[in-house]
């Protein structure tokens, strides 16, 4: 490393610290301050530390709403991601292995899924007709519908790297199509599945707009909506609001620290090929 590279690194670090790290430090400081001190908004070292009491208070607020929200968000995320993995891999598999006129139609669907903004009110109308509006499983299916395009593309390009000889060996052994897929192909997709699970989990866990439209109601609250509710209902308790932000930021931070490489792989898929 040249001295120029070292000095640039130090300058870049200082800039990154001010621009990218300080806002998180601010959030943390606000979250541990007393109610009066947090209301001042100042970026100062907390004069008293109320980490634990603020944490307990925000968890207990409005009859343990945050716990309910974590529960709901977890169910939605796990359910939707599981379906996205299976459905996405199945479509990507057929799309890559069986070239035919249908593929054009599937690609058109994928392109639409990536580009077209969902028509919200007509979607509510459909959900109501099916009895899925304001239900957790309705929300899961919405997340599946919106996430499919990305899953299909990710799986299709990965399946292209798996040799067909494997399928053919299984076919000669007399395996049924579903057995070939679930017992031979799906286990081989593990690296891309891990990536997909991470990227989609974070996207669905952080989703605000879709629960806002399709999942109204106290008992259906999700993590991002607690934050939003807190903002309007507890205007004077900024310490609790920021503690809530902190609690919502920690899960992605942990996931990021552990799975940095896989997340990066998922986010940059398609960057090289275009």
């Amino acid at each position, binding site marked *: 490393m040249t001295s120029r590279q070292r000095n640039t690194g130090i300058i870049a670090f200082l800039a990154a610290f001010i621009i990218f790290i300080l806002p998180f430090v601010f959030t943390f400081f606000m979250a541990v301050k007393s109610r009066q001190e947090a209301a001042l908004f100042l970026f100062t070292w907390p004069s008293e530390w109320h980490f634990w009491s603020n944490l307990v208070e925000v968890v207990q607020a409005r009859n343990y709403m945050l716990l309910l929200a974590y529960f709901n968000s977890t169910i939605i995320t796990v359910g939707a991601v599981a379906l996205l993995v299976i459905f996405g891999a199945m479509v990507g598999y*057929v799309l890559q292995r*069986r070239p035919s006129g249908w593929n054009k139609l599937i690609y058109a669907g994928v392109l639409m899924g990536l580009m077209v903004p969902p028509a919200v009110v*007509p979607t509510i*109308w459909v959900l109501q007709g099916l009895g899925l509006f304001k239900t957790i499983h309705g929300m899961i299916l919405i997340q599946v519908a919106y996430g499919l395009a990305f899953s299909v593309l990710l799986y299709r390009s990965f399946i292209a790297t798996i040799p067909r000889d494997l399928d053919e060996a299984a076919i000669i052994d007399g395996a049924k199509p579903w057995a070939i897929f679930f017992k031979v192909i799906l286990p081989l997709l593990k690296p891309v599945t891990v990536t997909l699970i991470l990227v989609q989990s974070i996207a669905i866990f952080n989703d*605000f707009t879709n629960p806002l439209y399709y999942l109204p109601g106290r008992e259906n609250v999700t993590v991002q909506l607690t934050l*939003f509710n807190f903002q309007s209902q507890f205007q004077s308790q900024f310490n609790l609001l920021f503690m809530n*932000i902190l609690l919502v930021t920690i899960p992605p931070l942990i996931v990021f620290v552990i799975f*940095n490489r896989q997340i990066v792989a998922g986010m940059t898929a398609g960057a090289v090929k*275009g």
Partner: protein
Amino acid sequence: MTAKRRSPYPYWFVLPAAVVFTVLFLVPTIASFWFSMTRWDLFQTEFIGWDNYRQFFKEPFLVQGLTNTLIYAVVTSGAKTILGLLLAVLLTSGILWQGFLRSVVFFPVLVSTIGVGITFAALMHPTKGAINIALSYVGIDGPSWLSDPTLALYSVAFIDIWKGVGLATLIYIAGLAAISPEYYEAARIDGATRSQQFWRVTVPLVQPATVTVVTLSLIGGLRSFDIIWATTKGGPGFASDVLASVIYKQYQAGFYGLATAGNVILFLLIAIIILPLTWWFNKREVDL
């Protein structure tokens, strides 16, 4: 059993995904064209032709939502593309703590947009916020970032760029890694300066990444809603309203037909911008 050997890749594999996608995405999208021409309360529809669209292009605050959407998308996408490329070049040049710096730039992409919005709303507070207090130390009288009508949209755009530039950087880093070092060697042998190498080698050869960054950030910018809702709710007045927030407001007010017309306009706007852009990018892809 049919005489023809059945394919080991049956089409019913596509079925579960196709059903969910069709029912919850395609049907509402197609239905939106009809509902956008009605006065609608979810139970009864009354056909009113192009009235909702007329209103969208006549009411000043709806027109402003439309122009704001375009400004917002161009500003955020442009900034993410340029800053993303510069950051990627910097973070692949072998500087000190390069890996850590990449993580720091990227992390905001993963955190809650609402949380980021609330945090920046506090930092941008006109009198108590840290940004203006810091500016006052160097003698600058900081503006009301989020409550000045001429500035609010750009302040929100800034927050969006702060949160999203990490993704652009990451995509560009992957794109730069795909450029063979031989091109730079050849350029150096020919006596190209650093800036010539950047403009003549890096920029043309990193184009696939540029296409991805521009397309993704434009679509994201045109559809942007949560960051605006968490900071200004489209205010002050309608100064930072975009199509997506207008749609939500009309939905809240019970104007479902009008909200759906907004949705159709947003869909057409994205199609009008993205499709020709993709075509143009594909046409001038460099051949090697």
